[in-house]
């Protein structure tokens, strides 16, 4: 069973860690953020929240029977196996240039993220 979740924000420390990881990983893999940076912001907040709650940035765009078991299995810890092997990110955090939703950014600031996620 998973603990009940609420739309709470992550700690500043985890958010900054995942924000920095996302920028670095996009640049390293030649991928870009979504043209709607609100999507990017929500996913980074979700990764940071899982890092706080579970100790690892489990993908926030999947349903799991048991989140703690999934963290131990590592397959869906970001960057997940499909991303590492085939640059497939169904969460739309890292998009290849041929994706219809791709934008031009590989950077997003802490304040940009919180500006979006504070609305929820």
């Amino acid at each position: 069973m998973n603990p009940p979740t609420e739309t709470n924000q992550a700690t500043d420390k985890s958010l900054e860690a995942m924000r920095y990881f996302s920028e670095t990983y996009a640049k390293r893999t030649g991928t870009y953020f979504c043209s709607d940076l609100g999507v990017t912001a929500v996913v980074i907040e979700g990764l940071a929240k899982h890092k706080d709650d579970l100790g690892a940035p489990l993908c926030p765009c999947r349903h799991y029977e048991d989140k703690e078991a999934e963290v131990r299995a590592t397959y869906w810890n970001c960057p997940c196996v499909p991303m590492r092997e085939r640059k497939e990110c169904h969460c739309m955090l890292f998009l290849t240039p041929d994706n219809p939703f791709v934008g031009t950014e590989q950077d997003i600031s802490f304040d940009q993220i919180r500006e979006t996620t504070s609305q929820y």
Partner: protein
Amino acid sequence: MSAAEAITDSTFKEEVLESPIPVLVDFWAPWCGPCRMVSPVVDKIAIQYEGQVKVVKVNTDDNPAVASQYGIRSIPTLMIFKDGQRVDMVVGAVPESTLATTLEKYL
């Protein structure tokens, strides 16, 4: 205010399976980016097809029984139910036209 009603594990049977008209179910989770893209599309569909299709949302984190029963893995997942049966499914962020075309098959 969302046009789609929030459904839970305990209301799913009555609101979805026993609905006299087809139901579009949006399975979402709180910090899922593409879910935020799909949500306004689903709301538009709810208004456009009012009376013909019932549109509801299920938070999979809070309602794991229904999510597990229907094998939800990737989120967002949109499912169409008719006469208590799942008849179609769309996974991921899709444009309104794709969703409308899928839905039209069951009206």
